[in-house]
């Protein structure tokens, strides 16, 4: 589901694309396709409209996603100064549109005319679509196109760039799809109106200006030039979220209860730990672990597990964390369901932490797949293990930082990556494990010094400095996570210390 900012941005890009129909190329393409109906037939005209639309969408996506990718490399996004600059540019552009100012800079170029004569019509219109979708290869009819390019660049978010590109491409494609197939009737009438009633273009530019102003307001409200959804508060006093279907479960920070939220229905039950997955719900009360069927409430397994602190459950497994003798943590796994006559504790086996002394985070399950983060003194890694085949792989690893709090769902891995500069909530596809996407970034919890001693030059201190735009220091840690489709949950933990009680809240981020 799109955020309000994304919706306004999409509408602005679409309107800018439609405005492009008034360009020399816009008129030409409608005429090129529509006037050939008698020669090539209705199917070819329809195919040509389709290839034009496909080309326009592709061109738009390429241009604006590329600009956003460049912005990402230059660390765009949530920098306050950048947001202020973009808002000022948007305000000026909106004013220009509202006043009907001449478009500047203008690109006085057109698509190659010979293509309509030398190439098959669907191919020619497809290529025309790409060029018009690019946005900056032909005449620009609205200042909004330049503003959208600036937004894509400043957002540093390829998703935002893609959104703008698709909106712009769709806007360019719509007039052609509407007019060309009915060129002899509706198409000619609309073309005449476009050509002889300047007020239509004027009104469209007024709409462009109003939408740009709305985008500026949305940026000011969100403090970001990215259309990505902002975190939404889910629970003010909760930790360790898990989700299955529409049900969200978490624990109260004081361990007074487990909370189950399904839409507007909220239920509580006494538990120190809770996890849901598949058709099961697992709870810990003291040293007793219980797995129940969520629908029937029937107990699937119950066992005594001393020192258990974290749970994960799926249709086929229960996994819990327990202290390892001599230090570190272990993960135990119990296959589900187990025969009634069989003692559950006897069937459980150690699946992590058996050999090495490592700190292991809260486990995560998706079917047979278990994900956990293991940190030793020398490195930190997230391991994904198939509990059925007992195969495992180090999905991600780092030295000089920390990987923690994984969650698995739908072929995606959600995790927290921390460095001395920042903490990031990231998601990556488990198949490729490449190009992770950052959903949330906050500052590091460490207090940094100036990187040079007092009274000395700053020269030479550069390698230890954090990149510009790095969020400021915070006392909050990105803690336990949950993933359900394209919704990520993360606990924001303020740790306990001398006399201070830990506090935590859960937020959700869509992506």
């Amino acid at each position: 589901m799109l955020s309000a900012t994304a919706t306004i941005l999409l509408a602005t890009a679409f309107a800018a694309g439609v405005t492009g129909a008034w360009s020399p190329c816009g008129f030409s393409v409608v005429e090129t396709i529509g006037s050939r109906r008698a020669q090539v037939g209705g199917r070819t005209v329809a195919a040509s409209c389709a290839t034009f639309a496909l080309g326009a969408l592709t061109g738009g996506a390429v241009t604006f996603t590329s600009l956003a990718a460049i912005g990402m490399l230059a660390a765009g996004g949530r920098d306050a100064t950048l947001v202020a600059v973009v808002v000022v540019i948007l305000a000026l552009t909106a004013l220009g549109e509202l006043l009907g100012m001449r478009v500047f800079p203008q690109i006085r170029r057109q698509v190659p005319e010979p293509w309509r004569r030398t190439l098959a019509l669907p191919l020619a219109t497809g290529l025309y679509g790409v060029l018009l979708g690019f946005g900056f290869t032909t005449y620009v009819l609205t200042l909004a196109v330049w503003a959208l390019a600036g937004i894509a660049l400043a957002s540093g978010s390829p998703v935002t760039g893609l959104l703008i590109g698709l909106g712009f491409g769709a806007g360019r494609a719509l007039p052609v799809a509407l007019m060309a197939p009915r060129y002899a009737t509706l198409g000619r009438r609309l073309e005449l109106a476009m050509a002889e009633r300047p007020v239509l273009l004027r009104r469209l530019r007024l709409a462009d200006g109003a939408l740009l102003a709305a985008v500026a307001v949305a940026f000011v409200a969100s403090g970001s030039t990215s259309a990505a959804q902002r975190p939404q508060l889910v629970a003010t006093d909760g930790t360790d979220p898990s989700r299955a279907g529409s049900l969200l479960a978490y624990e109260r920070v004081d361990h007074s209860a487990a909370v189950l939220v399904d839409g507007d229905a909220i239920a509580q039950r006494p538990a120190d730990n809770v996890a849901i997955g598949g058709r099961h719900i697992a709870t810990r009360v003291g040293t007793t672990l219980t797995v129940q069927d969520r629908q029937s409430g029937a107990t699937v397994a119950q066992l005594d597990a001393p020192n258990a602190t974290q749970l994960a459950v799926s249709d086929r497994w229960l996994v819990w964390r327990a202290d390892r003798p001599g230090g570190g943590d272990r993960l135990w796994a119990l296959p589900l369901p187990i025969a009634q006559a069989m003692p559950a504790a006897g069937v459980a086996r150690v699946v992590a932490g058996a050999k090495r002394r490592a700190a292991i985070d809260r486990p995560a399950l998706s079917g047979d797949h278990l994900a956990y983060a293991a940190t030793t003194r020398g490195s930190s890694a997230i391991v994904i293990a198939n509990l059925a085949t007992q195969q495992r792989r180090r999905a991600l690893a780092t030295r000089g930082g920390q990987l923690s709090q994984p969650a698995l769902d739908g072929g995606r891995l959600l995790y927290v990556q921390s460095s001395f500069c920042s903490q990031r909530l990231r998601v990556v596809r488990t198949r490729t494990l490449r190009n992770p996407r950052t959903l949330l970034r906050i500052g590091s919890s460490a207090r940094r010094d100036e990187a040079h001693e007092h009274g000395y030059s700053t020269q030479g201190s550069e390698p230890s400095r954090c990149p510009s735009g790095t969020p400021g220091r915070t006392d909050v840690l990105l803690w336990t996570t949950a993933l359900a489709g394209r919704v990520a949950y993360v606990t924001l933990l303020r740790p306990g210390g001398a006399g201070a009680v830990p506090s935590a809240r859960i937020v959700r981020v869509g992506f």
Partner: protein
Amino acid sequence: MAKRLSDALAGGTSRRGFLARTSGWLLATTSGAAALAAGEEDAEAYHFCGHIYTTASCPHPTGIPRVDMHGYPLRARDGKPVDDLGRPIDRSGHPLDEQGHRLTDPDGRPLPRAPRTRICQDGIPDRYGFPTQIDGSWYRCCGGKVRRLMDCCAYHRTRINGDTALTGYCYGGRRVFCVMYFQTQVPC
């Protein structure tokens, strides 16, 4: 810097030009973290006390490249050990608050340890992809204590600044990639 010092060394001799060139070459090949001879006013020109050349710091979790005798990171202002995230830690590696108490999670357990790796021997190879080691070092008086200035050495012609690396206190063909220091408890 090297030119100014070589001029001083060669001053007043009849073979001034030859000596200036020779001493300039000598200084250029030995000035990494610390030069052979320089006064306190020279040291103050760079980003931490005792460092008298332009080679930049090794990346450090809290900023100023203070390490312990083994090369693990310490917080410069109080010498407390820090992990790779820059958090002060106890002997077992658990993070502490500013009062020295263990930070705890909602279960009351200490927050999990983060890795703690050596700045030169582990951090640079991970980040830059080539092996490094500490060869020699130089000692100077800083803040009333003797400070050991250490060069992180590599078989690499370019230093962390991005320009040509110098020999400094590196041996066997290695050159100074970046610099750090260990603060002793020896008064001076």
